[in-house]
């Protein structure tokens, strides 16, 4: 399991280094700019007031950007979820099935490693990779000397990143599950990414129209606190999202442990039979 964990981390190191450096530089820069941005004051508030109402759906803390909570939400938590979500969806969809599509998994699985060991080693490596990227972002926040108006404790800042991690794991788990059900990595990342973007938009619109909250409350973004977690982390929401991520990953594991390892030339690159029963039944009825 250790060998597989190391090997998966090696494959993910490009993403970790690229995203880690990018986010580190970004958060470092944004932290350095806090005093300047926060000090703009009234003139900037007038400018924000001129924004269309729809903007508030996406940036609910826009009017508090002079405070650490509003600043972090507006310039980081309100959109980094969708940006890093794209990374996570790709990572989840490729985690097992990319090697299968490339034909590499056939040889790996012929070695004395159980499907459980391979699956969980890779999941653990993915969690390590995304945590490392977030730690790089946190390092950027922490390295700049704090000004007087930055009233946030380091502990609160660290905890505020947990809902982001949970949301990323949830959509990563969804992509992983879909990759083991759908015929290809492309189909899985497309479906999971589409669901994530749709949920992001629904959540923003629900901030503007309360009637949409009836649907939104059944989606992950509803429980994502964003900058709100800086003030007070909702542990129940966090546990719920982590639980959902774990459930999706367990379903993916169940699917992986039960199905054939596919190679080219075999009819494995199709929807599973339980998804095509209706079509087959219709075909049979037609005969």
């Amino acid at each position, binding site marked *: 399991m250790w060998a597989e964990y190391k090997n998966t981390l090696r494959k993910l190191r490009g993403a970790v280094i690229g995203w880690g450096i990018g986010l580190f530089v970004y958060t470092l820069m944004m932290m350095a700019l806090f005093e300047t941005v926060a000090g703009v004051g009234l003139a900037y508030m007038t400018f924000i007031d001129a924004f269309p109402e729809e903007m508030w759906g996406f940036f609910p803390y826009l009017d508090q950007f002079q405070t650490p909570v509003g600043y972090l939400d507006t310039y980081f938590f309100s959109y980094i979820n969708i940006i890093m979500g794209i990374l996570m969806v790709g990572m989840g969809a490729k985690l097992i099935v990319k090697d299968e599509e490339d034909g590499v998994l056939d040889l*790996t*699985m*012929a070695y004395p490693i159980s499907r459980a060991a391979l699956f969980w080693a890779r999941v653990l490596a993915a969690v390590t990779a995304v945590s490392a990227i977030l730690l790089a972002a946190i390092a950027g926040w922490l390295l700049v000397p704090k000004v007087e108006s930055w009233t946030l404790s380091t502990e609160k800042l660290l905890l505020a990143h947990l809902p982001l991690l949970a949301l990323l794991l949830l959509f990563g788990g969804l992509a992983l599950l879909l990759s083991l059900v759908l015929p290809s990595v492309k189909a899985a990342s497309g479906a999971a990414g589409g669901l994530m973007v749709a949920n992001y938009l629904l959540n923003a619109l629900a901030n503007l129209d309360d009637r949409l909250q009836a649907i939104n409350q059944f989606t992950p973004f509803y429980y994502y606190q964003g900058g709100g977690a800086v003030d007070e982390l909702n542990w129940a929401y966090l546990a719920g999202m982590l639980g959902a991520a774990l459930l999706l990953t367990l379903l993916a594991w169940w699917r992986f442990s039960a199905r054939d*390892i596919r190679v080219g030339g075999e*009819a494995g690159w199709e929807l599973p*039979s339980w998804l095509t029963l209706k079509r087959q039944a219709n075909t049979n009825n037609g005969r």
Partner: protein
Amino acid sequence: MESLSPAIEIRALHKSYGSVKALQGVDVTIQRGEIFGFLGPNGAGKTTTIRCVLDLIRPDSGQMRVLGIDPQQDPVAVREKVSYLPGELNLDAGLKVSDQLRYLAELRGNTVEWRYVERLAQRFDLNLGLRIKNLSKGNKQKVGIVQALMQRSNLLILDEPTSGLDPLMQQEVLKALKEARDDGATVFFSSHIISEVEAIADRVAIIRKGVIVETVTPEALTAMQIRRVRVTFQDEVTADAFTQLAGIKVLPQDRERTLRFEISGEMGAFIKTLSRFTVVDLEMERPTLEEAFMAYYQEGV
């Protein structure tokens, strides 16, 4: 108990991919210490059988035992004792050959002796320092051969091991398989090349359309070795001199002073008869395995 059990025992193995019936009741027993050839045309079910044995795919029904272990009950225990070379070998393109082999050795718990890996690489003329993505198909196949041999496993399962190799390297691989057998290993290898299987196998199972048609000795394979021969003579020669020879079938003439034959089995009598005439040119071709099957089983079985 394990020492008494066959290396591989397969009973009534069925596997379908949707409406395609890949295996339709495969029955085969491979004894320990033998080289067992698995011969069949493309799409006959060789790879599917092998992948079932390693629990890479799950059969619809049937029983299997590998070195006395049920691969569906304890696949890791089976894979600890088995080395495998896939028919479609794909490796991690970003790695060096040595890193790929070290990673695979780590999956075996680092029980591989690295000096032996280096000796194998030297034997098969494989540069361990090259990146996989820079290797030719033949050199990638050599990586596959080395990873299969490096563990000195009790059972080698090789799917088309000589695919993509030049003739000299093919011979070296076949020689290495014989040595592995002499050292006590069982070798189960698939091929669609009759001469290759005939050269090293102790026994051969012939699979066609998902069913084992026959399990034969290499000598019996010789009978299947049909060849098509076109002979151009200096003068006009009638086919009468050849029609009485056993295993010779005269095919329709397509040129003047030329005769075409289909020959199965030994060629001695044919060559002896041919020596009575002045031969200007002689062309010989080996038909595909499917054609050989058709001829051998007379289109029926």
